[in-house]
């Protein structure tokens, strides 16, 4: 299937993603920040679809937007941050933080301008129908060890989260 209106969709989705990012770091209300992050995550899933990565897009929607953000919203509601909304939102070293971020931005620009000639010229032609199968072949073939380590990591995280949140250890 031929891609349609790529420029329009790219600018719309990346605009939504960056708008979501800006709203995350500027809202007073933590729930509004979480909703903005969900918007950003869904826009990123759209960008993954444009990059011919449907499996990663599906995993992003199921796990990130539908799992991790539910966890965040749960905790925000349990912690009940009414009082924190009236406090000062940005901390004392915000100028230093902005300067550091600006330096990082300058570094990125320098790298991209100098390094753009190192990119390969051709874009790989990956058939879209078998994307999940090929990702699975890599995942259970080359990266089997990392897969097992990741499952161990998740087990440790589950146990850790349960122990942390218990009332009496």
């Amino acid at each position: 299937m031929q891609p349609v209106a790529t420029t329009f969709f790219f600018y719309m989705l990346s605009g939504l993603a960056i708008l979501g990012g800006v709203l995350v770091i500027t809202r007073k209300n933590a729930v509004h920040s979480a909703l903005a992050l969900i918007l950003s995550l869904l826009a990123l899933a759209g960008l993954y679809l444009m990059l011919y990565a449907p499996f990663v897009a599906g995993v992003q929607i199921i796990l990130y937007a539908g799992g991790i953000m539910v966890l965040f919203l749960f905790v925000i509601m349990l912690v009940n941050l009414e009082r924190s909304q009236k406090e000062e939102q940005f901390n004392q070293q915000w100028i230093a933080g902005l300067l550091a971020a600006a330096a990082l931005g300058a570094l990125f620009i320098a790298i991209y301008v100098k390094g753009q000639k190192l990119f390969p010229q051709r874009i790989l032609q990956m058939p879209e129908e078998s994307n999940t199968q090929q990702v699975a072949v890599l995942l259970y073939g080359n990266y089997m060890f990392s897969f097992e380590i990741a499952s161990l990591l998740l087990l440790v995280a589950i146990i850790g989260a349960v122990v942390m949140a218990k009332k009496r250890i």
Partner: protein
Amino acid sequence: MLASMFDGIKAYLFSGKSTPGQADSIPASLFWALVYILLIFLGLSIAVIAMNWLERKILAHMQVRLGPMRVGPHGLLQPIADALKLLIKEDITPAAADKWVFWLAPLMVVITAFTVFIVVPFGPAHAVTDMNIGILFMLGVSSLSVLGIVMAGWASNSHYPLMGALRSSAQMVSYEIAMGLAVVSAVLMTSLNDKGTGTLSMIGIVQAQAAQHVWFVFKFFPLGLIAFFIFAVAMVAETNRAPFDLPEAESELTAGFHTEYSGFRWSLFFLAEYSAMIAVSSIAVTLWLGGWLRPFTDWLSGDTWDMVFALIPGLSLLFLAGMCFYSTTRMPKHPSFRIQTAGLAGFGVVLAAAGVLLFVPPVRAWVQDIFWFSAKVAVFMYLYIWYRGTFPRYRFDQLMKVGWKILLPIGIGVLVLTAIAGVFF
């Protein structure tokens, strides 16, 4: 100009192309996608209205009473009266509620409930689109509806909706895992062909069942059946229906997550709940019950049996029309019932006309897939109502125990055994 449009329409309809995405040109695929989406909207609205009436009547008959009888003949106009009442009710927003999130929550639930129907296959060429990651997309968008419920509970700014929303979303997230494992077992079965590649696309899954000449619910008996059973239980818990409706039934005792919503916004939650029920039933039908395939394709094959099964849609509509005419004769003979009797007879005439229309050969061939798919989903809807009338409600800790300690290990076991069976058989 008009003639070329007609030619274009006929060329698309009879070309056997798979979905609007594969039509000849971009405006054509956009147009056909919009037509399909409009049809899905209309179909869903009619289905939700019918479900409302059916639920009240069937529950009533299960409880040895009659249900709504007054509003139309046998209460047939009751859902319309309910919809009108909800539309003209006052829309109250609590004063201390968060306005944006309060407005956004029902929207999110409804949008996710309707978006899953993009990939639902009513036939081999009757889906809005056939994504390669169809089943992954459906699971993902259903998991987004949990967010809407959490937002609804929080935005109401009151204790009881918050607790109801937290319980409801905890339940939905837990049973999503069991659903995912059951789905993975079914997808595993699609890869048991000679090329060894399965597919995640919904149309591909039904075609794999057709190619393997067995519905996945009967494959590797009893593994397919157990996986189907896990999904059937998890989908009832996922949609917050009895016997897992503690977060909802709290509204009878204290309050649920939609307690502060009134009027049109409440009806959006209600609409989204029924649409979600139909959506997960469509997943179950597609993955295990053979989608649009008619029953007994192999045992009762051949032209005569095909003709017999092809007549069933028309016959079922004629049967419904016959029941309408029978109840017309049983209506009270009092003069104030004349309008209702006439209405019921008219409804019967409409059903009979539709039934006769379904006997005409072109329509008969075209409606086969859609009819079998809808009939299987209708069986699931009846099962939902039956569960509501029969089972007592689970307590919340029992609910979580079933989800995590019973369904999850059985799901993992079925997955492993299916993989082993797939390798050796």
